[in-house]
């Protein structure tokens, strides 16, 4: 083996390998553009809809048929990473033409940072009139007088108690006519759970949930049960929400409803009504267990339904707002802010006109009806929320519940300058507290509730102060609606 030749050969070999990889890599990045819908006329669209993908795909098909010169190239990103990816795409200067608006940062900030394209050229008042009154709200989807988005979804009751017919029937919880006896009050729920757990001999439990993924499942339980007891703030996990607007504060510590329900919750656990694996199951596994009747009741929202319907499981009912008393003292309140946006056109898009047409198609009344028919949820166009023609009984029941959603105070209507307020999330937050109470790790329940309420208030004040520093006229008093009666619809008036 001669010296120099071999060492040079070795170096050359590695260099050749490296060059080869370079060529391949370069080649690949070049040949990526040779895809069928060539980059030139395809509209790029980003979303995070996986279970709702059939609806999106159908809309794409219909859109492309109606507009022969435009094609839509959809990319579905993972929900958890979605805000990051949109931020990075905007940072790189190469964002998609149309994208579902990420939940963070606030829409106000996205507009301020120049991410979104104003739509007024096409979203004329006549176009806006297609949507119900009050849809276009300064601070929600209108900024500086310009329209940036339109809603797809409407407001339904966020959470319900799901009741498994099979389990209830085996436990004998039926009416004389054979239908399932739906529990509507705290006491009825308790006794139903007791009956199920006792009568099934360990095969089935009264309640179950899946708390492993940290999406705040236990906050749902608190939220659902507490509203009817007169705590209109409930226990939502979205930052900055959950205040009792009558006093403009979080009342976790001061409103008895919270502590009372938590006491009952722990009581249920101690008496063995919960499926023992609930804390470590994923939410999805819990849905599968519910399907198989491993427990009789669970709390969730309309997102449970598509999966169950796909598995041909429709033998369940929904109960909303179980309360200590026969009639609830608080309800779910419509969320014009949260539902006001869906997708937007990128400010950097070179095909803004086509992009708007796609957006228009997605938020049209016809598409909304198909959304409802696909059992995805409630449409922003009230006419679509008609239970007739819906095959699934539970879904039809859900649609029918939209009347249980009242209009409540909307601080943003009163003072649009609140748009940029972005409070941080305390740690632990309300779902952590409920988990800690459930497992027994939190011994001082009242203390935990009070300190959390105070912390949330502090974080909101800080966020408001930060916005005020920018010269906007905002204050904590914008959140106080002393004349609000939670049992009646309320119309927010703009601040003078």
């Amino acid at each position, binding site marked *: 083996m001669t010296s120099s030749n071999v060492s040079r050969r070795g170096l050359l070999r590695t260099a050749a390998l490296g060059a080869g990889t370079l060529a391949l890599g370069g080649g690949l990045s070049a040949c990526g553009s040779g895809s069928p819908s060539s980059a030139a006329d395809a509209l790029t669209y980003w979303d995070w809809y996986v279970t709702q993908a059939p609806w999106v795909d159908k809309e794409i098909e219909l859109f492309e048929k109606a507009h022969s010169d435009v094609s839509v190239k959809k990319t579905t990103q993972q929900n958890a990473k979605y805000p990051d990816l949109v931020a990075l795409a905007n940072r790189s200067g190469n964002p998609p033409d149309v994208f579902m608006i990420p939940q963070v940062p*606030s829409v106000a900030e996205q507009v301020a940072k120049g991410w979104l394209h104003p739509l007024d050229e096409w979203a004329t008042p006549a176009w806006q009139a297609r949507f119900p009154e009050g849809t276009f709200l300064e601070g929600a989807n209108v900024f500086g007088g310009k329209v940036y988005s339109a809603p797809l979804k409407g407001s339904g009751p966020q959470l319900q108690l799901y009741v498994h017919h099979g389990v209830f029937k085996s436990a004998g919880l039926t009416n004389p006519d054979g239908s399932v006896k739906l529990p509507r009050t705290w006491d009825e729920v308790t006794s139903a759970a007791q009956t199920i757990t006792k009568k099934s001999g360990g095969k089935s439990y009264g309640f179950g949930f899946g*708390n492993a993924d940290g999406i*705040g499942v236990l906050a749902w339980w608190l939220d659902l049960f507490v509203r009817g007891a007169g705590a209109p703030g409930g226990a939502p996990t979205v930052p900055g929400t959950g205040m009792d607007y009558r006093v403009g504060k979080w009342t976790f510590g001061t409103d008895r409803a919270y502590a009372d329900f938590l006491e009952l919750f722990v009581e249920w656990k101690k008496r063995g009504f919960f499926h023992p*694996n609930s804390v*470590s199951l994923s939410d999805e596994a819990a849905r599968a267990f519910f399907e198989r009747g491993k427990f009789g009741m669970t709390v969730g929202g309309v997102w449970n339904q598509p999966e169950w319907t796909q598995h041909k499981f429709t033998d369940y009912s929904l109960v909303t707002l179980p309360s200590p008393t026969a009639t609830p003292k608080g309800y779910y309140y419509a969320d014009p802010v949260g539902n006001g946006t869906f997708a937007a056109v990128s400010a950097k898009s070179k095909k803004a006109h086509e992009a708007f047409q796609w957006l228009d198609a997605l938020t049209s009344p016809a598409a909304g009806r198909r959304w409802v028919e696909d059992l995805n949820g409630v449409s922003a166009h009230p006419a679509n929320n008609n239970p007739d023609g819906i095959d699934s009984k539970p879904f039809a029941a859900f649609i029918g519940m939209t009347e249980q959603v009242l209009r409540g105070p909307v601080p943003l209507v009163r003072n649009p300058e609140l748009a940029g307020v972005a409070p941080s*999330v305390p740690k*632990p*937050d309300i779902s952590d507290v409920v988990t*800690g109470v459930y497992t027994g790790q939190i011994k001082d329940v009242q203390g935990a509730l009070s300190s959390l309420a105070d912390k949330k208030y502090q974080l909101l004040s800080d966020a408001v102060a930060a916005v005020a520093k920018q010269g906007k006229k905002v204050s904590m008093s914008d959140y106080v609606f002393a004349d609000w009666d939670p049992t009646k619809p309320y119309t927010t008036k703009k601040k003078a």
Partner: protein
Amino acid sequence: MSLLDTRERKRASPTPPRAAAHPGLGQRIRAAKWSYLYLAPMAVLLLAFVVYPIFASFGYTFYRWNGIGAPGDYVGLANFRQILHDSIFWGAVGHTFVYAFVLVPVQLLLALALALVLNNPKLKFALFFRTVYFIPVVTSAAVVGVVIQLMLANFGDSAGSLLAKTGMTNGHIDWLGNPHTALAVIIAIGIWHTLGYNLVYFLAGLQTIPAELYEAAKLDGCGPVQSFFRITIPLLRQVGVVIVVLAFIGSFQVFDLVQVLTGGGPYFATEVVNTYIYHLAFGGSAGAAAEPDIGLASAASFLYGLLLIVFSALQVLALRGISRRRAAADQ
């Protein structure tokens, strides 16, 4: 030698000849030019993509920033103060240390034992067994997570009813949902998941020990235990130290498995530092989208890094102390 051309004879070896007592700095740099060249690729990648981001992130710790645009809201040391006062942070540090200090000794002992067994050239199906014990390493954390969760839920059913019959416990144990057992279960799964790495390291390390040594020892009458302690351990020490250090560092950075199995719960009972930081940056543990706080997450990251450096410095000092004492004893 005659085949070498003169050019190459002129290229001296990297170490300067002993004759020149103290060559100047410039001369030494020139003499070591190949060292620099060979160091360069790693150095460039390291500086550009590892060191630079660390400095940049350090800059972020002084701001409250959500990652959009450039940081603008200067808050000084507020982020550090917030982390230092957060009991959940310290809890996470504690859990991570427990995880590392239980996992590393147990896993390394198991891996070494397995490596010794599987290194035997006379073992049939060795290839098969090595692959079997290695496979968990390659399975993605997401899949491991859902599989283990379901397995424990179902296993709990059978084990629970068994235990209930003996009267020991009243039914079902929720292994991952019970704050007292969750961390232990995660450690066990951690041991299982990454043992393959250390198995491979030990197998590679055992290769540096020539077989003749063992044969010579056997001729001298050494039993397997003696040859293990007199040959294997001393010769493995160099590589062994590296393996131990890497194992500790790997465990201090645990994230995927914990996030997927319990998300740090229940109620932070299994929160480790990386899940803590992840939750800081991705909206609390409620999963509801909240603004990322890059400054706070970076500050937590730095504090943790500092803790680890202090800890490792102590480790190095301790090891040096031990070897110095041993050297003194040998004299």
